[in-house]
């Protein structure tokens, strides 16, 4: 009996995963590799990958991730190092920085929209201060570049706290004795940062990067609320094909592509950033 106990303890989690993750995943695979009248086909993938919609969505997703993730990482790292100094009132600052964690993507999108829309807070402020006479448009197909800036700002504000929390936890777990030893040896602040903090922070950085990249490829709600399909992204296309065009096969194909890209990135991160000396 004893040897079954571990399996029994794991069973609820495994059953949960099998029903709510495994089964839908299997269904998505079946849908992506089939179409009405065909049991197995690669046509969905050929059609999706060769379509202009996919190319645009793919490059937009990469562009947004490529800009947002490094910025988030550097902001979060700077903030975490700053807060880790534990000056008076640092806890209060942590609360302020982490507020957006409690917001859903949709709420963040709606808040950004009310700031940047043509009748939004920003335009009203600028008009009241007599800086501009007609509103500046941030949204619309013809203002894609401005839309991109709003998306980046909104994403930075919304998701930086997640990276911040992970990195702060990592920083707090670094033993102060290392720093004291380095100080005794006469290391400069830069040397302490590059030789002690960064290497010991690698596991946290890896988790933060993994999480953020995964989320970045799924980014959708915020963008959907702000700009609709003016700037298509991969997850948005999956949603569009499912809810508007009602083609579950193509929608699942997008979902499988997103999963594959995310897996490739995760594999790459784990390979390059793993702190093998910590594991050994």
């Amino acid at each position, binding site marked *: 009996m004893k040897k079954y106990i571990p399996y029994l303890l794991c069973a609820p989690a495994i059953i949960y995963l099998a029903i709510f993750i495994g089964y839908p995943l299997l269904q998505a695979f079946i849908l992506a590799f089939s179409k009405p009248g065909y049991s197995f086909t690669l046509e969905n993938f050929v059609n999706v990958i060769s379509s202009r919609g996919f190319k645009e969505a793919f490059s937009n997703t990469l562009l947004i991730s490529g800009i947002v993730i490094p910025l988030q990482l550097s902001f979060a790292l700077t903030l975490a190092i700053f807060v880790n100094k534990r000056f008076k009132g640092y806890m209060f600052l942590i609360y302020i920085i982490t507020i957006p964690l409690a917001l859903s993507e949709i709420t963040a999108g709606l808040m950004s929209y009310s700031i940047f*829309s*043509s*009748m939004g807070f920003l335009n009203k402020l600028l008009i009241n201060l007599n800086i501009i*006479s*007609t*509103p500046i*448009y941030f*949204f*619309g*197909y*013809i*203002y894609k570049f401005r839309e991109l800036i709003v998306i980046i700002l909104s994403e930075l504000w919304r998701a930086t706290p997640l990276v911040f929390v992970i990195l702060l936890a990592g920083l707090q777990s670094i033993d102060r004795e290392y720093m004291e030893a380095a100080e005794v040896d006469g290391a400069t602040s830069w040397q302490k940062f590059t030789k002690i903090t960064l290497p010991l922070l690698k596991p946290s950085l890896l988790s933060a990067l993994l999480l953020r990249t995964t989320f970045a490829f799924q980014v959708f709600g915020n963008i*959907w609320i*702000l*700009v*609709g*399909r*003016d700037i298509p992204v991969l997850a948005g296309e999956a949603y*569009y094909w499912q*809810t*508007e*065009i*009602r*083609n579950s096969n193509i929608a699942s194909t997008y979902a499988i592509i997103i999963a594959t890209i995310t897996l490739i990135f995760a594999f790459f991160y784990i390979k390059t950033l793993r702190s093998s000396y910590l594991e050994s």
Partner: protein
Amino acid sequence: MKKLLLMFILLAFLLLSSINIGAEKLIFLSTQFNPVAELQYMKENILSEFTKETGITVEFVPASYADFVNRILAEVKAGKVVTNVIAELHGGFDYLVSENAVEDLSGMPKLPKRTFIKTFVDYSKIRGVTAYIPWTQATYVMAVNKEAFKYLPEGLTQDDILRGSIKWTYDALLKWAENLKKAKGTPAFGLPMAPGGLFHRFLHGYIYPSYTGFQAKNFASKEALILWRYLSKLNDFIHPASTTWSNMSEPLLKGEVLLAWDHTARLTSAITTKPNDFIVIPAPIGPKGRGYILVIAGLGIPKNAPNKELGWKLIEYLTRPSTGVLILKGTGFFPVVKEAQKEVTEGGLKILVDGVTRQSSAPLGRPNLIPSLGGFGGEFSNIYRMAYERIVFRKEDPNKVLPELAKRLEEIFKQVNIPMN
């Protein structure tokens, strides 16, 4: 103590069973009123009243268009029909008639104290079968902030627009939108172009029939080229954020636009919030008339459904003028019985009812029903949106884009086996 507990359980059992005894239940499958707010309104304000009156409980089952057809056909073909009453758009009933899956309602008892609008009664008779009883109607109209009337183009009066006179044309709309942009410094005409918005209905149901005479048949014709040249010009006066709006109520209320086109249900909130600011006007006319969409939802009974008399009771209740007014208040879908229209006497709803009546009674009307394309409906809509994106936004040559998209459009109609119109 034990005895007391036993007695209590027995009493509770008796009480519960007495509630169930005699309680009859109907299953009401509907493709209409599925959004959460509408669904809740239907259950709490409409169907609960029916239960109070008759003691019959109604299980309201919302279904997507595809699920609806699959379920009814499966039930009818298996000979195990459990659904008592169905609510669907005209196109869905058309399909069910071709599959012999709905009862002919012509032999049912007369529905007293209501006069159905004749157009709808005519539509409900499909190939000799009275497939449904008209229930609600909806359409798409233009809502105007009264301030916009100050900037009407020369020679066009407010009265011309309200009456839908022949002066109220798409060219006049262009000029008006241009005037609004000049006066306001920013475009003030808005369309729900975001995904989730119904802009494609404007393209295939309004402007296409107005310019080409048909929704899809003349998609790449000479007339269509003129239409696309027009749209490219009009786009300069359309609020740029339109591509991010799926519902025009909010931009109207915020004053971002003074003139907007949308589904009546999606304009209700703006008009009922500020009934003194807005007015509803008919769609303009083009070279081939005034294209507009008529959405008719009806109530029917699946073939060989159980308890037909009870189902008919529900249909009788749902098509009463008073129920029609209740539905209008909660959802923005209009009654189809004349008595109900008379009951709406003031406020935002009156403005909407008047606007809808103006549109349907304006001269040169070309009403269209949304083609019933089943699972291809989304792709059909996307073709029109894609044409707009490629020709107007990306400035691609319509001579190249239109024939390319027309080919797919033809394939869709062929696959569903309905004539292009």
